[in-house]
């Protein structure tokens, strides 16, 4: 037999025919189809024992109780804790995906710890007379805040800086009418579970220029001209006539008088977007003090902590006075715009920020040290604005830090030479010693009087899912409402045509990558780089829907994407919050949007 071409072809043909009669080709076809179930890049969730663990969310001062579903100890989903009397089992979208934060791709993963420490101690020893060492605490009211205050008291000319905390708390359950001047009641104000639980019992009058989430669900929304809130407040207080107010605010007279009547007849409360706004003083006129606006109470602290630096506001610091500034940005909170901080810094100031995000002060600091994120660090949470009784709850860590982190409290204590103890435990013991209130355990939903709990059990329960609540004592009127406005060093420019309205309060800091579901994948929430304009303003500036443009304020410029929305009034640009926007706009800013 010769190997002619024809024979070769026949050989191949026979081979092909034979192969079809074997399982090989068919098996390969099915196998490749199965391969598509397992091809590279499809992760396999770990299997293992599933257990529930409890902690508290530290992403905002609400500190909602969290039940984490854990596989082999690793949290895979978070949910609220139903029996919790304040958070009522509710979590906000940020809280629901909080367990993703340690793995955020944009997380600060390393930092010059040694160099920062050396620079700080050098600056402390070498600083001139009157030059201050300061800690900026964005979330005052925590136990670690006490550590900072003690540390600053231990250092000469130490300064504890924090956004001013209201001295009051709002008791929504006592209110029949709530008049909100732009307070995002349903979108980040107070404790979501608490607000929604009280919602059925009050009428909400939302006074703000644009229809936010809160305005959409309010019983009455009064669309007001931006910047005329004071006039409205004055009308409600009876200081000016309703007709005058109507003229200035653009709201119909009838609507104003209806609100005025409502707040006159029922237990009411007035809320402002900024808890320190002078608008809050309207509550005094409504006889709300001591009823719906009550004095804030703090949980007990060890006696040894009484030597602590007072809380100072940034505005009260003389210019160029701060030589060393340590910023605790580990928890997102009340961001102080950089233009308010910068003038206070000495020319050779050392600025160290503890943060997990490179978006906030990390843009301005010399040293960025990686801070732990929720749920990596044991921490307590400061009081929420709607928590009447004092509470103490610990965010027990669910996982070990996934990157080498610096604990800001420990580091500041070390710099100041404070004794190395666990302040949380100390405080828990102090609370236990006080003997007031009760302990709620989440696993079984049982509440026990503190008198029946040992200190160790108290500490254990706090760490395994529990919360201490003070007795609801007599409500007291708060001392000092309002009168303290925010300072703005960024000049207000009146030649800019648009009023900036923050439509969506954003806290800054890391967000779960899954937030893309609410932002890019559904447009439910505004992303930080978007602004919304009325069709008229867009037309006059030649801006297209979805077009690139530049937002200009007196403080700077930012490249943004413009959305055209007939729901936005003319003369207003809606922006999302966040550190960048805060740096750009500050408070009550005006802006211009031009085509890129």
């Amino acid at each position, binding site marked *: 037999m010769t190997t002619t071409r024809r024979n070769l072809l026949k050989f191949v043909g026979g081979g092909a025919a034979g192969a079809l009669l074997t399982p090989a080709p068919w098996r390969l076809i099915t196998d490749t189809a199965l391969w598509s179930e397992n091809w590279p890049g499809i992760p396999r969730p770990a299997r*293992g024992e599933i257990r529930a663990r409890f902690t508290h969310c530290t992403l905002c001062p609400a500190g909602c109780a969290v039940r984490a579903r854990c596989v082999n100890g690793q949290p*895979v989903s978070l949910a609220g804790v139903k029996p919790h009397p304040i958070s009522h089992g509710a979590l906000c979208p940020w809280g629901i995906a909080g367990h993703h934060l340690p793995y955020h791709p944009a997380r600060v993963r390393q930092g010059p710890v040694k160099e920062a420490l050396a620079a700080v101690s050098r600056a402390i020893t070498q600083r001139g007379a009157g030059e201050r060492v300061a800690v900026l605490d964005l979330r005052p009211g925590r136990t670690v805040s006490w550590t900072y205050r003690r540390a600053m008291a231990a250092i000469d000319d130490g300064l504890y800086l924090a956004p001013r905390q209201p001295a009051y708390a709002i008791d929504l359950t006592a209110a029949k009418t709530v008049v909100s001047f732009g307070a995002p009641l349903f979108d980040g104000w107070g404790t979501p*579970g608490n607000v*929604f639980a009280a919602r059925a019992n009050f009428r909400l009058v939302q006074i703000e220029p644009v229809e936010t989430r809160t305005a959409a669900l309010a019983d009455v929304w009064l669309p007001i001209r931006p910047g005329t809130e004071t006039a409205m407040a004055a009308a409600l207080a009876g200081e000016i006539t309703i007709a005058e107010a109507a003229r200035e605010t653009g709201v119909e007279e009838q609507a104003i008088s209806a609100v005025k009547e409502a707040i006159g007849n029922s237990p009411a409360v007035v809320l402002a977007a900024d808890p320190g706004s002078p608008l809050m003083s309207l509550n005094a006129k409504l006889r709300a003090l001591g009823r719906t606006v009550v004095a804030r109470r703090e949980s007990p602290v060890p006696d040894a902590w009484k030597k602590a630096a007072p809380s100072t506001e940034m505005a009260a610091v003389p210019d160029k006075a701060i030589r060393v500034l340590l910023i605790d940005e580990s928890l997102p909170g009340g961001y102080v715009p950089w233009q308010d901080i910068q003038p206070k810094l000495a020319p050779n100031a050392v600025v160290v920020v503890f943060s997990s995000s490179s978006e906030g002060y990390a843009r301005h600091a010399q040293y960025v040290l990686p801070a732990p994120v929720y749920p990596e660090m044991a921490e307590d949470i400061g009081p929420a604005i709607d928590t009447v009784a004092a509470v103490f709850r610990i965010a027990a860590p669910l996982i070990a830090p996934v990157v080498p982190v610096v604990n800001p409290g420990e580091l500041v204590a070390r710099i100041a030479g404070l004794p190395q103890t666990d302040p949380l435990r100390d405080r828990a013991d102090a609370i236990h010693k006080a003997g007031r209130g009760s302990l709620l355990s989440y696993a079984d939903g049982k509440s026990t009087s503190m008198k029946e709990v040992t200190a160790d059990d108290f500490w254990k329960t706090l760490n395994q899912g529990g919360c201490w609540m003070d007795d609801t004592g007599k409500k007291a009127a708060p001392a000092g409402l309002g009168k303290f406005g925010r300072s703005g060093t960024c000049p207000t420019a009146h030649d800019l045509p648009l009023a900036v309205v923050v439509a969506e309060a954003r806290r800054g800091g890391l967000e779960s990558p899954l937030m893309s579901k609410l932002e*890019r994948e559904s*447009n*439910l929430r505004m992303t930080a780089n978007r602004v919304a304009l009325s069709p008229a303003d867009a037309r006059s500036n030649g801006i297209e829907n979805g077009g690139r443009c530049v937002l200009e304020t007196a403080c700077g410029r930012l490249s943004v994407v413009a959305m055209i929305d007939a729901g936005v*009034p003319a003369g207003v640009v809606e922006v999302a919050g966040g550190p960048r926007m805060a740096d750009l706009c500050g408070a009550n800013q005006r802006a211009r949007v031009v085509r890129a």
Partner: protein
Amino acid sequence: MSANKRYGMSIDIDKCNGCGACMMACAVENNIPPAPEAANDRRGVTWIRVYKVDNHLAYPERRTAFVPVLCQQCGHDTPCVHVCPQQAVDVDPETGIVGQMPERCLGCRYCMVACPYHARYFNWWDPKWPAGMEKTLNPDVAPRMRGVVEKCNFCHGRWHAAQQKAAAAGQREIDAADYVPACVEACPTGALRFGDLSDSSTEVAQDAQRPESFRLLEKIGTEPKIHYRSRRDWVREIASAPRPEGKDGLRG
């Protein structure tokens, strides 16, 4: 064996503040990956999507409502089931849940074309989580691969878990409290409710009977099992066909 269930949901639009907790809980529960760089609202995967809906008027008459739209679990003539060429979609007679089998799906997307509610989502990209984040995946739900369609199945992983729990107790019937989809559990305002529509004692079945209750595109006859309700007239109107003059829903 117990009588067949007809799981459904009732949604009070007047309570929904559009916070998005349901969408996040859903994505966490069902191992939905975060969107890649190039994704937008037309290519994302959100088994439940809260639409920002307005009354088509301009400021200051503009009023907004938030409408969560998930698979409507059509009970009659289910459009996606009979178009699927290879039986990757089926209706479970036991639960009434419309199920999508990603491993059977070839990604032809005919079901997406057939679905009037746009509640089906295609995996345009390979599923990708940031490094380490794959540790947070739910073991009760298999991650899907690129090129297949997926949709809400009322958190079927939770149904499995509830079944398993019942089995451990020696029972076939699950405890209703054990089976609640993630979105319902997560809703902070209580706008979403879940339960068996065929049992008239459940809250959902009663909600469905309310006069202000409606379903989306009821006239096309798909008998969806998601019952919406609102006391606002204009909100109830969204159940009907689109009005052509209102074209300015620019923000999605």
